[in-house]
């Protein structure tokens, strides 16, 4: 199939025909309201593809067919289009008005575009300034707080990390990430697009607008449109930006003597007669340290490991734009990199994209896009991708009593050979290189007025390469002899290669026509095929005699291993859309999509997704038309279905054959001829249910769009209910069945929510400014799951919220032995200073049956907004974002002492924990339980004791820029020069202890504040 399309397209490109000659010349000048020349204005003879653009002085020359009355359309980005029918004159000067009306914008929708004012579904869109202007490395980060109903969460600020996106809350139990479409083609990640390349992003939120994507639309759809050249544009633009990142919050830990004292207290609390550190030893420790630091270390591990207070980040972007009447090219090359607070961790990304538009003749045009992405993730050994070695975690748990470096400069053994600093310096590396190359060839044919035929083929190839090398580290004793202690016991090299192919082919037929200036119809029919395959290969060796050669051939041939796997999947779809409107007043739209997926057995493979929506532009009615304060008002309602085929297996990986019972291979060892031989074993591991099929999300949505005061104030509001049924769940089956859980259609999930977007845009003399804000809520309630519960500290079960906190209800701390006598306790080791739990079922003991739902863990009442202004050459932008309601669990790094039995003691706890050394009064005020290892499991079990409000407000971005006036630069050939300063995540408000960032995960790479300076020069 691909060959045929590629051949077809190539044939078409070769057959471009010349156009006809013409007779009459028209010249003129196009200016704006301030009489400034407008270069690059497109002038097209209406109904044809013929036209021209204004030159750098705003002048144009156009040949008109003689004797015919033609209408010319003058259009330019940011200005209102004008249609003019010239008489017999030869000169025509035109003044274009700046466009203020957001509703006249064209919005990208599934397989097409629509005018914003004609929309009947719940669709939001943001432009280039909202994406590239946020100065983020990843597009996903830029979405945080920008669109009502879109929740973007992150848990780390590590180099290259992106964010996870949810549209309208949770839709299903498994994959909830929205479908991302870039220029009409589905992609794996939104972060494979350069933020600077984004022209706009549209979010399809309700089923009516997402149903056209059928089985992949249930969790919403994000449509990304990349920038393309426009007629008359011609520029070369270079941007350089440098930034520094700093942690927004850093936990702190107690000093070395206090550490030992608290450690002793814990040991005694746990039944030891005394702690391991004698009082005299502690008292003289600092003196001993001065005399012999090798024996009496006092190490600040955070300082030792996090060698940089600020991590660098930089970006280069080169953009070439050239548009003539027939060929338009936009090419961009972007490089971004960021470093970390510690060594050997970095992220580099190259993004290359060329978008070409070619007008072959009146009827035929071709788009030819090519893109290439290469990202390199580098880290320390075992840091990627598993984070088995997490330098942040190590820096935070290593207590000061272990040494990092001896006086003589050798690495110390640390804690029994665990020396994370030595691991960073000598432990090897992990590297991943991810290459993606893709193209998109689209062929548009307009045989008659109103009819467009489109064929598109888009192949994407992924070539990934990983290399993980972890080296054994032998320590040298302080006396110079080699010690027996090692870090990372074995030197292991593993390499992986994978090759992925995804193919997307589409054929679309579109017919749009207006009859009698009243009836508009727009019909779309299409076929789409998606196919993907992945093949991967892994190999490893251990037993390296030398550790300096990270290639497989230098390892032992005895200790080698390899692996391989492959899978493929496909999706065939037919779809159609019918739109009708009467005088742009009454709108009705219907969509239908039929999908066939290879992930289901052939008789259960097909699914049909319908949707309908309608709109009524009330402001077009006579009784409102004269209302001056109201510029626009439309009511709309929709109903539709979308599905989800993205199933996960028991390990959370994509399941491509979930309905099939398969035999998985294993290896068992036997003795034969006096030696051990491996024999292959085989067994069915997962119980398969053959008749599984799609899950379906039904959304009903009502909304309104309005603008007031001459379109300066805009408002959009939506209320919706979404029900997902037949959720494919790894439903609990009795364990005694002896199989891993199969996927079955079982669950129901309900979401209810609303969204509000408000904007104000105006101009005061030379000051342009705008303010916009959004607020939304989505509450997910789990319906019947046929008895299955996903339990843990967060639960998914009938009647709960999705991933709701699930644990005990606490009632302070036990203060005395008497209080414990006869009181219900979790286990026999409970002592004063332990958390007291409420015996909910009143059976006299605390068991897992006393756990209850404690509240939602998902963010509610999300808000965001921005403020922009520009005056002459100055521009300023401020963006903020927040969550008004959320329950968060206090991360153990600041609330739990002695992680792994030896770890640090958080400063946060000092003076706040229950202790036998305290007065009863002090203990009454204690907010942390007694120091204990045996009771930790009980005390730190999830209970409301450890939950706090996770609400926060955050200043996401402030940018200030100044663009140098053209006149000063013109002589040098420079069109413009913009300098800017920007800062991300500089300020936040929350109830969290000062040591914790409200968004940060436990022991994860800190959330960072970034300060940037940059310049853009345009030739």
């Amino acid at each position, binding site marked *: *199939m691909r060959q*045929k*399309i590629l051949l077809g397209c190539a044939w*078409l490109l070769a057959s471009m025909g010349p156009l006809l000659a013409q007779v009459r010349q028209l010249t003129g000048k196009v200016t704006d309201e301030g009489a400034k020349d407008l270069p690059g204005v497109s002038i097209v003879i209406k109904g044809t593809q013929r036209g021209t653009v204004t030159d750098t002085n705003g002048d144009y020359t156009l040949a008109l067919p003689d004797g015919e009355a033609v209408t010319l359309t003058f259009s330019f980005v940011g200005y209102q289009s004008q249609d003019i029918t010239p008489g017999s004159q030869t000169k025509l000067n035109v003044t274009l008005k700046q466009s203020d009306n957001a509703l006249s914008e064209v919005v990208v929708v599934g397989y097409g575009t629509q005018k914003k004012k004609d929309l009947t579904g719940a669709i939001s869109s943001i432009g280039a300034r909202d994406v590239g202007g946020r100065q983020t490395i990843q597009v996903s980060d830029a979405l945080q707080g920008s669109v009502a109903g879109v929740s973007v969460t992150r848990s780390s600020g590590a180099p290259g990390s992106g964010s996870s996106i949810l549209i309208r809350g949770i839709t299903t139990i498994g994959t909830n990430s929205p479908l991302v479409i870039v220029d009409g083609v589905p992609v794996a990640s939104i972060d494979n697009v350069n933020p600077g390349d984004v022209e706009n992003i549209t979010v399809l939120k309700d089923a009516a607008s997402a149903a056209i994507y059928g089985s992949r639309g249930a969790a919403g759809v994000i449509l990304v449109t990349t920038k393309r050249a426009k007629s008359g544009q011609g520029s070369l633009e270079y941007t350089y930006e440098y930034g520094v990142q700093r942690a927004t919050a850093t936990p702190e830990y107690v000093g070395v003597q206090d550490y030992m004292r608290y450690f002793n207290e814990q040991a005694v609390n*746990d*039944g030891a*007669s*005394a702690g*391991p550190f*004698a009082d005299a*030893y502690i008292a003289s420790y600092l003196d001993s340290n001065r005399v012999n630091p090798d024996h009496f270390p006092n190490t600040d591990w955070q300082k030792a490991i996090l060698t940089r207070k600020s991590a660098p980040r930089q970006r280069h972007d080169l953009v070439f734009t050239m548009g003539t009447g027939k060929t338009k090219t936009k090419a961009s090359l972007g490089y971004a990199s960021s470093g970390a607070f510690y060594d050997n961790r970095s992220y580099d990304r190259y993004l290359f994209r060329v978008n070409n538009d070619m007008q072959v003749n009146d009827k035929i045009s071709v788009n030819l896009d090519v893109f290439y992405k290469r990202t390199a993730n580098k880290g320390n050994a075992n840091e990627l991708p598993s984070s088995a070695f997490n330098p942040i975690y190590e820096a935070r748990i290593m207590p000061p009593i272990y040494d990092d470096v001896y006086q003589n400069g050798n690495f110390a053994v640390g804690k029994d050979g665990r020396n994370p600093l030595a691991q960073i310096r000598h432990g090897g590396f992990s590297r991943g290189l991810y290459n993606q190359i893709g193209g998109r060839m689209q*062929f548009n*044919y307009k*045989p008659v007025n109103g009819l467009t035929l489109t*064929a598109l083929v888009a192949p994407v190839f992924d070539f990934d390469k990983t290399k993980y090398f972890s080296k054994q580290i032998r320590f040298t*004793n302080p006396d110079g*002899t080699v010690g*027996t*202690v090692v870090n*990372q*016991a*074995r030197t292991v090299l593993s390499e992986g290669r994978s090759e992925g192919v995804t193919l997307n082919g589409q*054929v679309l037929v579109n017919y749009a026509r207006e009859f009698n200036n009243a009836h508009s119809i727009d019909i779309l029919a299409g*076929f789409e*095929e998606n196919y993907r395959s992945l*093949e991967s290969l892994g190999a490893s060796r251990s037993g390296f005699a030398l550790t300096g050669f990270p290639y497989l051939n230098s390892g032992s041939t005895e200790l080698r291993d390899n692996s391989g796997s*492959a*899978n*493929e999947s*496909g999706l065939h779809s037919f779809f159609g859309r019918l739109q009708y409107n009467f005088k742009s007043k009454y709108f009705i739209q219907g969509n239908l999509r039929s999908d066939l997926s*290879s992930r289901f057995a052939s008789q259960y*493979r097909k699914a049909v997704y319908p949707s309908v929506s309608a709109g009524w532009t009330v402001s077009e009615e006579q009784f409102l038309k004269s209302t001056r304060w109201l510029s626009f008002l439309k009511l709309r309602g929709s109903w539709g279905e979308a599905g989800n085929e993205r199933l996960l297996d028991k390990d959370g990986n994509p399941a*491509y054959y979930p309905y099939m*019972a*398969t*035999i998985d291979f*294993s290896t*068992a*060892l*036997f003795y*034969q001829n006096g030696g*051990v031989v491996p*024999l*292959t*074993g*085989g*067994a069915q591991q997962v119980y398969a249910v053959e008749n599984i099929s799609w899950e379906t999300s039904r959304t009903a949505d009502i909304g309104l769009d309005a603008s007031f005061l001459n379109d300066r104030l805009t408002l959009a509001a939506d209320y919706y209910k979404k029900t997902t049924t037949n959720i494919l769940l790894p439903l609990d*089956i*009795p364990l005694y*069945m*002896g199989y891993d859980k199969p996927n079955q259609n079982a669950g129901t999930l309900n979401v209810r929510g609303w969204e509000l977007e408000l904007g104000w845009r105006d101009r005061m003399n030379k000051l342009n400014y705008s303010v916009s804000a959004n607020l939304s809520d989505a509450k997910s309630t789990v319906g019947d799951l046929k*008895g299955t*519960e996903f*339990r843990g500290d967060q639960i998914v079960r009938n009647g709960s919220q999705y991933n709701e906190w699930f644990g005990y209800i606490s009632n302070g701390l036990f203060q005395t032995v008497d209080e414990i006598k006869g009181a219900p306790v979790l*286990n026999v080791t409970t002592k004063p200073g332990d958390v007291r739990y409420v015996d909910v079922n009143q059976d006299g003991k605390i068991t*897992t049956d006393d756990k209850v739902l404690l509240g939602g863990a998902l963010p509610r009442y999300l808000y965001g907004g921005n403020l922009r202004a520009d005056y002459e050459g100055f521009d300023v932008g401020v963006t903020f974002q927040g969550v008004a309601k959320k329950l968060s669990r206090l991360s153990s790094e600041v609330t739990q002492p002695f992680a792994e*039995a*030896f770890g640090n003691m958080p400063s946060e706890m000092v003076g706040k924990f229950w202790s036998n050394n305290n007065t009863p009064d002090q203990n009454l005020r204690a907010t942390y339980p007694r120091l204990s290892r*045996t009771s930790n499991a*009980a005390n730190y079990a999830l209970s409301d004791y450890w939950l706090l409000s996770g609400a926060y407000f955050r200043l996401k971005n402030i940018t200030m820029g100044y663009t140098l006036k053209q006149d000063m630069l013109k002589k040098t050939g420079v069109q413009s020069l913009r300098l800017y300063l920007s800062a991300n995540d500089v300020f936040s408000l929350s109830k969290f202890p000062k040591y914790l960032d409200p968004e940060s995960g436990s022991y994860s790479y800190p959330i960072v504040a970034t300060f940037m300076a940059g310049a853009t020069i345009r030739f």
Partner: protein
Amino acid sequence: MKKTLFLMLLAGATSCHTLDLNPLSEASTGTFYSNQTELELAVNDLYRLAFWGNDNELFSDNEWHRGQLTNAVIGGTMNADDAGVQTFWLNSYKAIARVNSFIANKERAAANTPAAVMLRLEAEMRLIRAYQYSRLVTHFGDVPLLTAPVALAESYGIARRNQAEVLQFVFDELDFAIANLPVSYGASETKRLTKGAALAIKARTALYTGKWQLARDASKAVMDLGIYALHSSYSQLFLKAGETSKELIISVPRDEKQQVFNGAGYVQDNISRNAGGYGAQLPTRDMMDAYECTDGKPIDESALYDPKAPFKNRDPRLTATIVEFNTQWLGYNYMPHPDSLTVFSSKENRRVPNKDTRAVAAFASFTGLLWKKGIDQTWPDRLVEDNDAIVIRYAEMLLTYAEAKIELGEIDESVLNAVNLVRARAYGVSVDQTAAYPAIAVTNAAALRKVLRRERRVEFPREGLRYMDLIRWKLAEKALSTPVVGLPDPAAQNRAKWPFPGVTPLDDDGLADYSGFGTDVKALSQRSFDKSRQYLWPIPAVERRVNPNITQNAGY
């Protein structure tokens, strides 16, 4: 022209990939079990370590882990959400489901597989299934009994079956295996399950469930097979040298080259700090005090015992199991004494700082003791442990025979002989050299029982048998409710009372009592076995959520 082209393109785009895609790197179940190779694959799968093994030694009073401090059994915190319990239960039933599926479908291969091979494979499978049920009933009591594949819809109606019924099924199945498995395999054949293995599982199951006659007869049958014998050296048996010993009845091979091994963490927990380890997973003082003196008497009765030289005059299994002080161990002299700040290393041929004393390294062995059994120089050198997992060995059959006979009141020469065989091997002598080891001669049932129980404890440390012994002897509530004790901190150590302050009193069950030593021993952590419920494990909570017919054991 252009229209044709477009139509061509359209046709091209629609003639696309099929949606009937099959897995590329796995096999499908529909046709499995259809030839001998596939039958063998199905059987081989169940020889993996996941389906075999004894209990965790940390669930007993023999061993303690400084870092883990406690666990659900000794901490009394066992509950129905316990992950370890659920894994144990699920793995057993996985094996059972695979056997059931094999038995139901094996006829597919009947046409092309020799009947003798079919029968042997079936016997192996039924043995494996019986072994799983044996493990289940001994830990959970009543359990669901599935003997054929069950459709998911039917599975929700299943209830627990009485332990006696399940046991009867186990014994019947084992009899089938006993009748149909070969006594041994040729050297060029793969070593698979044997008649002796089936008998041994039967003997152990019968012993654990108090079926004394069955235990006696099955263990006697193993002895009468004549192909098993005690390995000449107790200490060598647990090292690589002993992996093909005639003493092993069931053992699961492990091999680093085949990616079956324990990594550095486990190794380092078990070896001395001088040798690069952590000395974290430790023999308890209770363990050490359980060994007799060479006169055959426990330490609190023997004149040969000296708490200042506790390794002297003891059953040789003590020094084969626990590292003796002042001996070279893994290249270093092992000496936890607080004043031994340096020690001689035979590996480095010089004195080195002694990280095995807590005066130098605060987290050196808290009990002062380290395991020796099964550990050799390859552990610190490779930081890999790939010893075979011994499931049942011949010594257990001898002691099973003796215990069954004692409980039946059939005390005779064969009982003494069985116990003495094991004891003589410990001393490296033959059973009739009664002058060279303390042979047992008493015939009083109570006294013999005491000897037998002590014998099991000192013969099988680190082999995962102590937990079930404590459970079936109902001693767990006593043995697992006392503090774990260790050496006093270096500063608090009374040098005159090194290493042990006195003779530890032992009670009638052989359990030590340290409460009289005050601060001369240090309590390390409290054990709190909950006798009201913990003699049986809880049925995993998920079973009761999806099937209300499943009942829970008392107290959970």
